[in-house]
């Protein structure tokens, strides 16, 4: 009976070490404070009706970003713990962490940063911006959107659950490479937490990718042909195509690992004919495109930012689009470069190496196009543009390091070294994260109605950039010194000073993060001074700026018609020539109702995942049946939308105008 109910979970597995107890207490305290505030301000109902059950992509986007920022914080805590250990653990000192604990931390760091921090920020930003940019009121599948978000949250909770409910996390590296992740070498529940957390949140990502793909293909405003789409929409499209192509591979690979661990099958085991090399192949068939899923949208953001702040149309639009498509296709054909050293032979290695190098061509083209865009522009050096410049500085070096690594001969020496670690951090931080920062700064006034403090934004940027170089140049050098990654202890004392500089660099980055938090607080405090209700604070070019800031929940009372690229820029020009606004005639339209079924379903998925981790099969069954019942009830509901009538719209629009001019 105990087994059926609680599976492997026993009293002893509950938290009993300082860091899990600490984590539990902190989480409980935070929960209690939040609950108290909500009760005191009587906001429970508001929270539920207006936010948690919302199908409005703007709300969902903001929730994505909040959760992602929390996870970014969690991942940064992991990072500082890794760095401290490596700065201390040389020679006779073994640092303050055990090997196993250290390995759990870097595993969690990787997973959290990729799956929950970066992906979350990205999907959040897409939710906010894409519908506005294509002139749509919503995504194609509003229910799948809230479901995807809540599955992502469920995954995020699951990956942190061992703090409260015990066990440990995978100590296998962020991809849980077999056979290390098999029962033989990882008998604990750590890998199972990894499995179910990624499976649940991966399903969420897949739903998001599918949703954006259909939205962009089917819901563009009249006149917006594919070749008139803003670059951010293009790159979101490419990224979504990659998501629906490779996330199924991730799902099935994790599923096979699950079968190995739960049913004793032999896909990737070392015994009975299993083939661990197949796991490495499959996981990188997902893993490499994943990098481009993260980086491509950032490229789109930079295209927007550069052309807006140069007050000039994007140079080489077509070649920019082609470059994005080119990268999308190539990214699916290079996975083997993650394991040249498995020894596939010179021909195979060289072919994959060259296909990897080729990716540098479209990437270079994009940078040149941005330069051409700025050439003879009217550049306003805003903090968004600062992030772009930071990106050029970091990404150029990171890219060259990548081209070096693409050469199998060099990779034989640099693989698994800290050089590699430095390289991909340069790509993800300098490429994806800086882009996301630029995007958040750029679009913040659109959704909040006031700008972020520019001065603090620039200060934060300088902290980030110097901190970044200070933290990662030592890792490049350490790689050249023969330092392997993931070491919880090393013997060569010559490495230590570099590790220490690296920690200092991280401290500088932390100062940057603190400045960013300060920036948000001060901007909120001084929001009256930075207020912008015109909807167009940057004199920008694309449709999202054609509506007020923040936009009404229906985005556009009348769907705008598009007559060319940079649709809003054209509109503004036309307005100047012909300032008489046409008479607006409102028409009824449908909007999705809010629904709690996303939360319910993800709640059951969370229960299911957690129960599976501990082999509580009865409870897992309840979770599964719960999910099914939710789906069926939802399927029977035929009235998922409501109609906003022309009169209501007219009234809302009048109120909005009154508010803006007041």
């Amino acid at each position: 009976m105990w087994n059926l109910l609680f599976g492997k979970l026993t009293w002893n597995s509950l938290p009993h070490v300082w860091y899990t107890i600490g984590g539990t207490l902190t989480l409980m305290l935070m929960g209690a404070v939040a609950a108290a505030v909500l009760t005191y301000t009587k906001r429970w109902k508001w929270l539920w009706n207006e936010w948690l059950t919302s199908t409005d992509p703007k709300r969902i986007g903001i929730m994505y970003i909040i959760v992602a920022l929390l996870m970014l914080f969690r991942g940064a805590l992991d990072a500082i713990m890794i760095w401290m250990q490596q700065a201390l653990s040389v020679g006779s000192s073994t640092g303050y962490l055990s090997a196993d604990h250290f390995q759990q931390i870097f595993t969690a760091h990787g997973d959290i940063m990729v799956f929950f921090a970066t992906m979350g920020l990205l999907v959040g930003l897409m939710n906010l911006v894409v519908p506005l940019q294509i002139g749509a009121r919503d995504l194609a599948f509003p229910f799948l959107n809230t479901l995807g978000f809540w599955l992502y949250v469920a995954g995020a909770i699951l990956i942190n659950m061992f703090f409260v409910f015990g066990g440990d996390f995978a100590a296998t590296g962020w991809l849980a490479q077999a056979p290390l992740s098999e029962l033989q070498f990882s008998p604990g529940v750590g890998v199972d937490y990894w499995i179910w957390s990624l499976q649940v949140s991966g399903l969420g990502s897949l739903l998001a990718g599918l949703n954006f793909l259909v939205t962009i293909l089917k819901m563009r405003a009249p006149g917006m042909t594919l070749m008139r789409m803003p670059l951010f929409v293009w790159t979101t499209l490419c990224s979504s195509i990659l998501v629906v192509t490779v996330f199924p591979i991730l799902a099935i690979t994790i599923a096979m690992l699950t079968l190995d661990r739960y049913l004793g099958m032999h896909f990737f085991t070392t015994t009975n004919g299993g083939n661990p090399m197949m796991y490495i192949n499959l996981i990188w068939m997902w893993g490499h495109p994943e990098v481009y899923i993260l980086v491509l949208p950032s490229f789109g953001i930079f295209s927007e930012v550069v052309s807006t702040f140069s007050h000039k149309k994007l140079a080489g639009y077509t070649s920019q689009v082609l470059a994005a498509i080119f990268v999308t296709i190539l990214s699916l054909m290079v996975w083997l470069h993650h394991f040249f050293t498995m020894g596939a032979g010179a021909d195979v290695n060289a072919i994959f190496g060259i296909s990897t190098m080729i990716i540098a061509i479209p990437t270079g083209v994009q940078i040149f196009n941005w330069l051409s865009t700025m050439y003879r522009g009217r550049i306003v050096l805003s903090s968004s543009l600062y992030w772009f410049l930071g990106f050029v500085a970091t990404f150029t070096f990171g890219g060259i390091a990548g081209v070096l690594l693409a050469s199998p001969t060099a990779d034989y020496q640099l693989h698994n070294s800290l050089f590699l670690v430095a390289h991909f951090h340069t790509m993800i931080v300098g490429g994806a994260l800086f882009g996301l920062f630029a995007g958040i700064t750029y679009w913040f006034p659109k959704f909040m109605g006031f700008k972020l403090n520019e001065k603090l934004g620039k200060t934060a940027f300088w902290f980030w950039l110097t901190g970044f170089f200070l933290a990662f140049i030592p890792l490049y050098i350490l790689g050249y010194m023969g330092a392997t990654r993931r070491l919880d202890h090393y013997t060569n004392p010559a490495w230590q000073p570099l590790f220490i500089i690296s920690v200092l660099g991280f401290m500088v980055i932390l100062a940057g993060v603190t400045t960013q938090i300060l920036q948000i607080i001060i901007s909120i405090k001084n929001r009256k001074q930075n207020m912008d209700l015109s909807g167009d604070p940057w004199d920008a070019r694309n449709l999202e700026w054609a509506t007020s800031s923040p936009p009404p929940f229906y985005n556009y009372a009348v769907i705008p018609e598009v007559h060319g690229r940079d649709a809003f820029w054209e509109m503004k020009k036309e307005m100047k020539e012909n300032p008489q606004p046409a008479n607006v005639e409102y028409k009824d339209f449908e909007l999705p109702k809010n629904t709690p079924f996303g939360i319910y379903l993800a709640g059951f998925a969370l229960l299911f995942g957690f129960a599976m981790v501990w082999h509580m099969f009865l409870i897992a069954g309840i979770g599964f049946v719960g999910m099914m019942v939710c789906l069926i009830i939802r399927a029977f509901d035929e009235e998922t939308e409501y109609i906003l009538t022309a009169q209501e719209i007219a009234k809302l629009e009048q109120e909005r105008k009154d508010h803006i001019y007041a």
Partner: protein
Amino acid sequence: MHEEKNEKTFLGFWIYLMTDLLMFAGLFAAFIVLRNNTFGGVGGSQIFNMPFVLVETLFLLTSSFTCGVALLLAHEKKLKGVIAMLCTTFLLGAGFLGMELYEFSHLFSEGHTYQKSAFLSSYFALVGTHGLHITAGLLWMLILIIFILKKGLTQGGIRKITLMSLFWHFLDIVWIFIFTIVYLMGVAL
């Protein structure tokens, strides 16, 4: 409005089917890599009963046909015919599933379990995943029948039948691949 919604739903569903296909592609790849890794145990040619599998296949192919007829009748708003056809499809599908389960239990009773070798693992996982999809399809069909009985052949109802039949044909196609790659080639090689 309905047109536009249908368009979105169908495109979305097609994309979903493609993602599912990619998942199967992963399983097929695993099977092809592992099919000779029998670890001294049985290989495909020793355990596959071809006449049995052929009958199984005929069940599924016929069910695909009746499912198509159901959709045609739905567009003609013939409620009774739709229900009858869906029930036939359901029975044929259940027959297929029953035969598959019998085959599995037979293999188990002879000691050829999925723990024995990588070949058997990949075989059971691939065919079993298809079986799980069939189970989900049957459940869906059942719910659909209840839905149509309750609400009639509404716009939404027809859309749901279309989606279900797309899913069912998709499973049929996957099965043809399984039949070829797992069974036919398993016996021949």
